[in-house]
Every structure is written in C-alpha cells, then in structure tokens.
C-alpha cells in the first residue's frame, strides 16, 4: 500500500479542475465552430458546417498559407542561427565568456512579446535604425519598407524563437559523449569532419525537438505578426483575433481556430514520425 494513497484525492483533484477548464475551453471552440452565426448577437443558431465553407475565401486561405510559410521560414532561420550559439555556449571554456553568451541570448526570452516586438518596430520603422543607417551611408535615398512586410515579421519572429532554440540545442549538445569526438580525432578526422559526421548527427534529437518548438511557437504567435505586420501580413492568429474580438463573430473565429488546431496536430505528427525515423537511422 503506497503511503500517498490517502492523499490521492487532495493531490489530484485541483489538477482535474484545471484539466476540465482546458477541455471546456477547447470543447467550446469546437462546438462554436459548428454553430450558425447570428449577426449582432453573441447567441448562436443551430448546428451547421457553413463556417468551414465560409473559410474557403482567398483571405483565409492566404492567411493559412502565410502562417505555414512564416512558421517554416522562422524554424529554418532560427535553427541556423541558434546552432552556432548553442555550440559556443556549451563548448566555450572561459566562464565569463560563457555567462555573457548565456545572458545575451536568454534575456530576450524573458522580455515578453510586447517589449520585443515593440523594439523591432523601432529598428524597422521608416525613421528607425536600419533606414537611418542606410541613409547615412548614402545607400538609399528614400526609406525602404521593412515594417508591415513579410520579411520584417520573419526577422522579429526569428529573434523571438532563437533563445528557446538555443536552450534546447544547448541541452542536446551538452549531453553528447565527447569520447566519440575524441575517437574520431584519434583516427585522424579533421575538426570539420568530426563536426559533420559525429557532433551534428548526435545532436539530431535536439535539432528535431527545437524545430518542433520553433514551428509551434511561430504558428501560434500573435503579437509579432499583429504589430509588425500591421494587418498587411494576415495570419491565423490575427484573423481569429479580428473575427472574435472586433467582429464578435464567434463561430467563424472558432472554426478558424479549429483549422489551426488540426494543422498543429498534423505537423506534430509529421515531426514525431521524423524523430522516430531518425532515431532508427542513428541506431539509438
């Protein structure tokens, strides 16, 4: 008889309440996605599939495409930038240098979406940092558009995603048994070859885990596409907000959310399958 059995009810029931809260929120979204919208009212009509056919318009489809595109681009670029950083963070011997890299790459994670995104508007704005520098250098005459562009949104999203990617990659790289690298070295492999054939493959689980996180984060990102995109880079999140809080069309907002949930589930499945396959190749 386990000693905690008597406390079971006390330990579990609060968590059950939270789980019920989560489920009710999601079930409500699901239910409303199947209800008829009654204009000018928060109440809804009977069950219907019209909301989903209503989403077959170019604005929603392009937002869907945008969101997927942004998520993939952000995932790839943050991986490319975070890997060297994570590698340096783990392998640098100098403690002070290590702390500097750690704090510089982590601070943005704890600043919150608004501060980070707002800071990027100062960098990208027509009187902002980039345009001022380019103008002073005589490279441009008129400000180039960075705000309200796809490029600007990706740039800010990559910045948002790098810290968490660095953390996950760092954890993976730090758990690599260095004897493998030493063995390769003693067999005459040069550092580049060691990295490509030993270190990189061994950090694959970390690469996949951080790709999944980067993808999921970007997929649900709201503040960045909303503030930097300014309505010109519509995504699922900005449209759900617009439909839900500005138009108060709960059913349509809910059905768009359901599409988002379905896509998230599909991409997680794909990532999961990839992980299993890679593990089999790696012989783990």
């Amino acid at each position, binding site marked *: 008889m*386990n*000693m905690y*059995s008597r406390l*079971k009810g*006390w*330990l*579990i029931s*609060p*968590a059950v309440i*939270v*789980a019920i*809260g*989560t*489920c*009710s*929120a*999601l079930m*409500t*979204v699901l239910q409303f996605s199947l209800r008829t919208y009654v204009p000018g009212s928060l109440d809804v009509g009977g069950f219907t599939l019209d909301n989903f056919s209503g989403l077959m318009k170019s604005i929603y489809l392009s937002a869907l495409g945008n969101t997927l595109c942004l998520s993939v681009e952000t995932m790839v670029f943050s991986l490319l*930038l975070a890997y*060297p950083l994570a590698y*340096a963070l*783990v*392998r640098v011997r100098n403690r002070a240098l290590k702390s500097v890299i*750690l*704090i*510089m*790459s*982590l*601070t*943005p994670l*704890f*600043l*919150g*979406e*608004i*501060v980070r995104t707002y*800071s990027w*508007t*100062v960098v990208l704005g027509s009187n902002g*940092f980039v345009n001022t520098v380019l103008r002073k250098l005589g490279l441009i005459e008129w400000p180039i558009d960075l705000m309200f562009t796809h490029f600007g949104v990706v740039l800010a999203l990559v*910045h948002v995603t790098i810290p968490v990617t660095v953390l996950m990659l760092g*954890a993976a790289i*730090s758990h690599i048994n260095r004897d493998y690298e030493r063995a390769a070295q003693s067999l005459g492999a*040069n*550092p580049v070859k060691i990295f490509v054939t030993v270190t990189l493959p061994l950090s694959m689980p970390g690469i996949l885990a951080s790709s999944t996180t980067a993808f999921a984060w970007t*997929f*649900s990102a*709201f*503040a960045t596409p909303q*503030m930097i995109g300014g309505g010109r880079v519509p995504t699922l999140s900005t449209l*759900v*907000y617009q439909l*839900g*809080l500005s138009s108060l069309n*709960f059913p349509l*907002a*809910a059905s768009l959310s359901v599409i*988002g949930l379905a896509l*998230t589930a599909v991409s997680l499945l794909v990532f999961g399958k990839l992980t299993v396959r890679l593990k089999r190749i790696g012989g783990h």
Partner: protein
Amino acid sequence: MKIRHGLPWPLRVAGPLLIAAILAFMLLPVIVVTLAAFNDKAILAFPPKHWSLQWFARVLTYSDFQSGFNSSLVVTFWASLIALVIGTGIAITVKRLDFKGKDALQAILMMPMVVPQFTIGLGLLILVAQVGLDRGYAILILCHVILVLPFVLRSVYVSMENLDERLEHAAASLGAPPMKVLFTVVVPLLGPGLFGGWLFAAILSFNEFTASLFITTESTQTLPVTMYNYVREFADPTLAALSVVYIVVTASLLAFANYFLGLGKILNIEESP
C-alpha cells in the same frame, strides 16, 4: 602532440566572428530601443538629437500603466502560486502512484504547450460569455494557470528524477504520516526545482499577452495588454522607456540567478566533465 588546432585558420577566425554577429543581432533591438527611450522628441526617431528623461517620468505617472502593473501582480502572484501547488501535487502523484486516467490527465495538462494561446483565450472568452459570468480575475487567473502549468510540471518532473524514494519510505517507516513526509522530506528536497518552476511560471504569467488580450476587461487589464493598447494610441517613446525598465530588470535578474544559482545547471546545458 598538438592535434587540437587542426582547424584551418579561416574557420578559426570565422567561428568567433559568426558568434559575435549572431549576438549582435540578438542585442540590436535592445540597444536601439534603449537609445530611442532617451529621445526628447515625441516621435520614434533614430538616433535622438537631444536627450531627455521625460518618457521615463511618463512611464511612472501614466495611470493605465500603474493599474496594469497592479493587475499583473495580482494575476502573476495567484497564477504562479496555484500552478506551483497543483503542479507539485500532480507531479508527485504521477511519479509515485498509479490511478485511472493518469495518462489522459497528463496529456490534457501538457496540451497548452502546443495549443495556440489565442485558441485557449477565445475558448474561455466564449465560455464566459455563454455562462453569463463576468470576465473577472478568476477566469484570468484560471487561464494563466492553464498556460503556465506545463512548465511547472516539467521542472518538477526533472527534480523528481533525482529524488530517492527510499528517503520517503524511511520517514514513513519511522512513523511520519504522509502529510508530514510530504512537507518535511519531499518539498525541501525538491526545493530548487520548485523555485525554478515557480520563477519560470511567474515570468511567463507576468508577460502573457495573447490569451489575456481576449479575456481581460478594462478593470482587469494586465500590463502587456495596457502596453499594447498604448502603442495603438500613442506614437511617443514612452513604451521605449518602459522597455528599458523591463530590459534592465530582466538582465539583472538573470545575471543574479546565474551568479548565485548557476543558470547552466538549472537550464540543463552544463557539460558533465
């Protein structure tokens, strides 16, 4: 014999340069927003021609920021505390007991890691509207608990891995009732993990924006929502000044935590020798 430096010299130079460039990218917005905060003009221009502290004064006197800060403190305090208590309880139960629906409960609690915040926010908004409740603090705190609980759970799970179950059995066999075992053996031993989980929950809750935007009202508006509304209304550098406050506080907290607790260990990125 020196085989360590077999790297061709261009790569040896390129490596550090690449790291420096990436770090510069990470720091760029921080530096730019800091400079913009000291501009004496009411526009966001870079670089400022004359310097001023007036926007910092406005941060302190603008009443919406004060009430937003207060709401954020209330929500963060309760949400992180509740999430910590619930997370610890359920982590211990999951590791030490078997019960029906254990896997399902765990899966549901971890779901917010992948379910978009705007979906949870929308769901709670509709739910509250349907039931006819007020959008008060209760629903906001519930929402934050839902969102930060996965992070607390993960942190407590990791600490539970290193907890020797025999210590609990020893205490129990010496006659300590379960409650006493929990509070005199388990909780103290989990201490650092619990603190880490709580801190992470508190920071996440304090900065939570998307879901809060859906379910806050004017009276429960948290600081991030207030900040967002400010940018939509005004174009002056007040928010830059507030960002500087955020940056200074966050970076000092991190440096402090790194110095005293060793962030590398907490974050699990330390190489074993």
